[in-house]
């Protein structure tokens, strides 16, 4: 986005994203998803709606999956966030969830995928062995228009069955 010097009510915000702090003044009304995409330049997190229904903007905030269009950037001041760019290991190795989506064709166009990956990662952190129905319920807030979801469910099951392929846990904190 452009220069905001003319905007009213700028607030200093510092958010740590994938281990790197981004600190700058932003408008109080700025959504976290726009902060991530436009201020931090991390465009892997997507926007698919304006009513918090689609989940394309899902990130991990404090370890849990959150739709970053439902949070103002100022509300995340001082928080640590993991986005899709932070999922792979330092050596570039895919996380179990990333690898599961690849192995089981859990994506087609890939636009909802970052949100799906983050929601699935959040699910497995609290429920490492979810049933197919539990996966469907947990991903209820993420819309995919391409896959019909069955292969996304397969992908999450693949990740649950191959936890060892995950990189070091806890990169969000």
């Amino acid at each position: 986005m452009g220069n905001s010097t003319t905007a009213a009510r700028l607030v200093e915000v510092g958010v740590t994203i994938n281990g790197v702090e981004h600190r700058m003044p932003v408008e109080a009304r700025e959504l976290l998803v726009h902060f991530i995409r436009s201020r931090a330049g991390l465009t892997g997190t997507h926007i698919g709606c304006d009513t918090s229904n689609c989940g394309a903007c899902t990130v991990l905030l404090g370890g849990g999956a959150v739709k970053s269009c439902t949070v103002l950037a100022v509300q995340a001041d001082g928080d640590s966030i993991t986005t899709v760019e932070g999922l792979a290991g330092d050596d570039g190795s895919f996380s179990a969830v990333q690898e599961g989506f690849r192995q089981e064709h859990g994506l087609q166009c890939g636009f909802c995928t970052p949100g799906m990956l983050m929601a699935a990662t959040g699910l497995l952190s609290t429920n490492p062995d979810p049933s197919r129905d539990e996966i469907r319920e947990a991903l209820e807030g993420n819309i995919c228009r391409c896959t019909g979801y069955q292969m996304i469910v397969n992908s999450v099951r693949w990740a649950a069955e191959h936890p060892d392929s995950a990189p070091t846990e806890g990169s969000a904190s």
Partner: protein
Amino acid sequence: MSLVGARVIRKEDPNLITGRGVFVDDLDPSGTVFATFVRSTEAHAEIISIDTAEAEAAPGVLGVYTFDDFSELPRVPGLPPELAPLHRPLLANGSVKFVGEPVAVVVAMDRYKAADAAELVTVEYSPLPVLPSIDASMAAMADPEGPRIHPLLQTNALPILPAPEAPSEEFVNAPRHAALRIKNNRCSAVAIEAFAVVADWRPEGLVVWATYQAPHHLRNQLCAFFGIDASECRVIAPDVGGGFGSKINFYVEIFLAPELSRRLRRPVKFALTRSEAMVHMHHGRAQINEVEVGFDDDGIVHALRVHTLQDIGGWPDHTGLGLGVLTSAMAGGCYRIPSVQAWLTDVITNTTPIAAYRGAGRPEAAFLIERTMDIVADETGIDPAEVRRRNFIQPDQFPWVTPANPDLAVYDSGDYPAGLAELLRILEYDSLLSEQAKRNVDESQPLMGIGLSCWTEIAGFGPPGSLEGFGHVGSWESANLKVQPDGSVLISVGLSPHGQGTYTTMAQIAADELGIDIDRIVVRSSDTETVQQGIGTMGSRGVAVCGEAVRNAAIEVRRRAATIAAHQLEANPDDLEVVDGGFQVKGTSTKSTPWRDVALASFQNLQLPDGTDAGTLDHTVFQTVPNFSFPSGAYGCVIGIDRETGAPSIERYVCVDDCGTVINPLLAEGQVHGGVAQGIAQALFEEVTYDDHGQPTTTTLIDYLVPSAADLPDFEMGRVVTLTPVNSLGAKGIGESGAVGAPPAVVNAVVDALSAFGVRHLDMPLTPEKIWHALSTHGTEV
């Protein structure tokens, strides 16, 4: 090992699962500013005044523009000259035709400031009579003085395919008749990435990034629009977040963004919000089908008559005009109906334009004929599976020239009885029928319904003339294949994929012909400056047309490489065979040469045989196909219905597809799943609606119910294979099958469950409320 037919995981995925994909709104070339629309709040009105002063003075605003600022520019392209009154202006010119129509454009430093300023534009309207539906628009036509949405056109209805003068003899002589009026609900494609475009009119030429399915097509249209050379205009479709037909339309911002960039001398971006996309991006379906069927006591169908009324919205789209032609051509479905009379009226309404949505005219055909077959079964008391079996076109009757439109639809191949038999086997149909008989008399259990859908559709667009009819430069597809000096391969395709896995399937096809490791084959597309003229991705044409282009390019490059290899091995080219990684003299592994050596030699004059030029391992094919292909299938749905609430629940969904040769079963299944999900969504959840004043009532994903993972079942998959003679691969195309075949199976299942309550038909979507009303009123219209 043959890779065609193998479950190869996708080349596309690593970028997309790491956030390294690049979609249009991810791009911000230096100096990019943001443009947004002021949209009509009225469905039909004259514009009295537009006051932009306050918006122009708002912080960060670079300009506010109305029609008058662009009056010298052409209209949106696509429609034929005889429909001049329907040629759409880039912004509303004195009147508005639907809610959401762009009235003004605001350009500002960022999207927040643009949205703020758009709120400050004041538009004064004088309302006109609103015709928000086919019925309202046709009713107005009954009155010579009634409202006309485009007064210069003097009509709201375009008779695209004229009605026959009289019913056919077969129809008149049929012993029994039935009629059905079907509303095929208006849907939104809802690609999760909404429409977005960035234009940068630089001193050296115009660059446009657009989320689009046919970038070369767009480039050609932009050049004609602005009167510039194709060689100074570059269109790039980067990663594209779903299309489903909604990204081959000429949205006005495609033309406004370059013009604004030219005037402001900086890149200009439009990126719709979802609420904007729901009223701005063209919708699909939106037909009424008036069906009459003539049949006999044995359930044999003698004749079909279908009048399709296609809603085309307030500013008709050129694709939308022709959708009903495809519906009409396919009205007879899988059946050897001796007489099919199908005609088409396009109807202008005060709604968002209608254009292609996954299946584009064929889902409507499958729906009407499959509902009709169940009506025939109901009227004759013959089982729906048996009625279908008795009427099928038989495997030895191909090519089948459909009486509905012999010029357009000549079915290539199929085995419909085998598809249905496989479906019934997987369903265990007989035991399902017994279970249903028990359940439906047991008040403690949900009602149970079984629905069948035996469908065929048009894929592999298409033979010469087919896509030209929709404004494309040709109906072929192109592929360039070049071997690099190290023996790796770069393939450029004229397709423009957005989720289909094209880079993987095309590499599989080439790998088999060349004997080169698939990991050393890279496929690229969607950039008009680096890829030869192409057509694009639509109409289930990727594998059937472009796959054939890639195969033929690979065969020619292999032939040329064999002459170089033969020169190296001092052998006759005819004595060579391709093995993994190179060539060898047939059966003699000691006399071999690897691709790496052949590839390098192909660039070295001193290493080449006489008469062979350097760079010879580079070949482009513009692949023409002689006909469409006609995939088919048999889908079955078992549904449970809560007797108290009317809530339907899909208990089983079985898909038996015949798409001919399958290149990659993983990807083919993915296509079917996605299409079936959209078809089930149309049947149960989704409908774009307007109130009586033309105000849209489904402008968000709260009101327009796109199903989530929790709303859909796991699908059971089956397969029948009949090869198409249309291409050497035998592949028919699979992209739209699911969306074509799925809705009637669901609706037939629900109607089957409700038949004891006197229900004969219900229009989609089958919401719990609609089903509950049907249960409580015993099928009387509500």
